[in-house]
């Protein structure tokens, strides 16, 4: 119903555009194409009228979409005879959801006799209010268009106004993204706060025992619930910042050196996009590669060299695959850093009789070091936030171990485990996921900010 009115309002706006434009054309003709006799081109007059028609109409329809349901629900509830439904919020919600089901036609018959009448009322109200708001929006559109049209003059600054409204539209669009980010952070902080009411931050940040199973019944045993997250932090650092970087830094750096300093331009043209494809492989694909191929191979290797207690889900397997995943990222950052070193630096070293490898080791890499370090930090921040590989290959046992053949768990893997399946959202177990998420968010944020600052000052040094 309201869609029909939305189309109608749109039609009004379109008509407004044509009328405004036609008037603009008349201004232009009267001005005999003299520059300055008419401020704006005809289509700006049209757009101005159309925007004045569309904006209020759409605002009203949006208001209806957001508040209409609540408006009707209140009236429907008021219509039910006293004592017809329970007094609690829960009862009311149950009643309303039954009514809504009836309105949509989900149920053939009502369970609650009152619901039948309420559903009929609902339909009637929805129709009535829909027409009221719909007609209202069309009327607003027409009024807006008329008002806008009446303001048009040859010297009317329609172009300036349209440009300003375009800018406002863009600002609103970007605000949506920014506000969403703030909303997510706020919810993280809020839920974490609830968690820290149950568990002390000291225990969470410095405790070494992680066993988030809390008792659901008083008589349950063995589920005391320990929330010392140090093993998780360690596992995250061990896999993402140590093992993965041991793989990714040398390989990524050497790739970048080869591609920037040695490779023929033709080869570089092919190899760079191929590397970027590697970066585009979905992480879940790396995940099952890690779980099904690398993890068993790592375990077999460990057993063959005499480590009998090697786990089939090991820190090494997850770290290795994560390292491979990060290689293109590191190499691309290092590539940028090396390319930013001026050619004159390289020429200066070569002209001293240095070999290409001496030039790279003694001049290019030291010169590019800040950029490379920034890139590595960004890679670390990416690795510690990575989820699929560790969920599939690292395991869930919160071990505090430095043995890469043992199973460790990470912050991200635990969050997945804590929030998978049916959960109650008021237990310490579930809330701990938010606290973990908050820590992860703060750490990656700090890493990103610092790394970007390093990279930025470095770029300025050579610009």
């Amino acid at each position, binding site marked *: 119903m309201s869609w029909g009115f939305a189309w109608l309002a749109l039609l009004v706006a379109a008509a407004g555009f044509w009328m405004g434009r036609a008037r603009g054309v008349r201004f232009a003709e009267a001005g005999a194409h003299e520059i300055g006799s008419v401020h704006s081109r005809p289509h700006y007059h049209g757009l101005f009228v159309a925007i004045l028609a569309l904006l209020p109409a759409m605002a009203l329809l949006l208001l209806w979409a957001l508040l209409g349901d609540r408006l009707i629900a209140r009236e429907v509830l008021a219509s039910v005879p006293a004592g017809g439904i329970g007094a609690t919020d829960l009862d009311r919600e149950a009643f309303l959801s039954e009514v809504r089901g009836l309105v949509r036609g989900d149920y053939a018959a009502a369970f609650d006799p009152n619901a039948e009448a309420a559903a009929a009322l609902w339909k009637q109200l929805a129709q009535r209010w829909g027409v009221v708001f719909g007609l209202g929006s069309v009327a607003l559109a027409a009024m807006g268009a008329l008002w806008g049209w009446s303001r048009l003059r040859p010297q009317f600054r329609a172009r300036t106004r349209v440009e300003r409204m375009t800018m406002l539209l863009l600002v609103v669009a970007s605000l949506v993204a920014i506000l969403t980010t703030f909303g997510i952070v706020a919810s993280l902080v809020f839920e974490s706060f609830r968690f820290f009411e149950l568990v002390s931050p000291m225990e969470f940040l410095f405790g070494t025992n992680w066993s988030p199973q809390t008792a659901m019944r008083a008589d349950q045993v063995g589920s005391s619930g320990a929330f010392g997250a140090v093993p998780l932090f360690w596992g995250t650092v061990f896999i993402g910042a140590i093992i993965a970087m041991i793989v990714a830094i040398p390989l990524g750096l050497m790739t970048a050196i080869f591609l920037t300093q040695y490779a023929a*331009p033709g080869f570089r043209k092919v190899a760079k996009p191929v590397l970027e494809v590697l970066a585009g492989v979905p992480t879940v694909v790396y995940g099952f590669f890690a779980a099904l191929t690398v993890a068993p191979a790592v375990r077999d290797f460990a057993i063959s060299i005499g480590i009998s207690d090697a786990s089939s889900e090991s820190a090494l397997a997850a770290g290795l695959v994560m390292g491979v995943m990060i290689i293109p990222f590191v190499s691309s950052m290092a590539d940028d850093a090396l390319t930013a070193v*001026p050619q*004159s*630096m*390289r*020429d*200066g*070293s*070569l*002209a*001293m*009789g*240095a*070999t290409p490898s*001496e030039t790279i080791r*003694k*001049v290019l890499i*030291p*010169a590019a070091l800040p950029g490379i370090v920034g890139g590595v930090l960004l890679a670390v921040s990416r690795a510690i936030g990575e989820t699929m590989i560790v969920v599939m290959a690292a395991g869930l046992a919160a071990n505090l171990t430095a043995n890469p053949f043992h199973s460790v768990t990470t912050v991200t893997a635990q969050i997945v485990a804590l929030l998978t399946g049916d959960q109650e959202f008021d237990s310490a177990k579930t809330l701990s996921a938010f606290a973990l998420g908050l820590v992860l968010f703060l750490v990656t944020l700090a890493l990103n900010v610092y790394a970007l600052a390093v990279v930025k000052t470095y770029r300025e*040094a050579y610009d």
Partner: protein
Amino acid sequence: MNDQAFSSVAPAGGTGAEKPKMTARDVRVFYGAFEALKGVSIDISTENVTAFIGPSGCGKSTFLRCLNRMNDTVAGARVEGSIALDGRDIHDPAMDVVQLRARVGMVFQKPNPFPKSIYDNVAYGPRIHGLATKKPELDGIVEQSLRRAGLWDEVKDRLADSGTALSGGQQQRLCIARAIAVNPEVILMDEPASALDPIATARIEELIDELRGRYAIVIVTHNMQQAARVSQKVAFFHLGNMVEYGDTREIFTNPKQSRTKDYITGRYG
């Protein structure tokens, strides 16, 4: 190539007083299909500062870069003809490009100190070529090089500071000190003062004069006053040809070629 082959060709503008340090015969450079240099022959001696002048794109920098094979680093560049250092062809497989560049140093248009300390900048060459085995020895080379480049008094108390923190003129003298530190026989300078202010330029010109005789110096410049001030020999390049080569005084007062005359009198360029 042997000595005979070189001496059999009349040296262009050579004085004959001393055996030339570097000799070039019919050097041609191609960038792809484009012939940037169309057969240049010249002798360069240690006792003179040789200046290459000519309008932009005339091939003077291209030729300079041939003398220590820096054109090797340019993709698609091809060098023909022969260039010899002390009679030995620099393109000879037996002549290592690393050793060649240690003997033929280069100073670039824009000062390009490495992002290292002043000390490490000067010590860079001696270190990679193993010229000093002990720290005091290296200290001595660094001090001597900085003294010769006229920079010692300005930086002796802050050798650990970054070379990039110096002023433009100081940076360029640091680059000259860096080139001197490996004790080269030839120093090539590609418009060494074009990025500097007049005072720093004057300082560099004085320095070039002080270094004359110790090193064979070749300087590319598009500033004719500069060429007149610092050089004893001038080669005029135009459109890939070396039009005229001779004593500086002679070229500037009594050029034989009309193209040279037109250029130095400001008719074009």
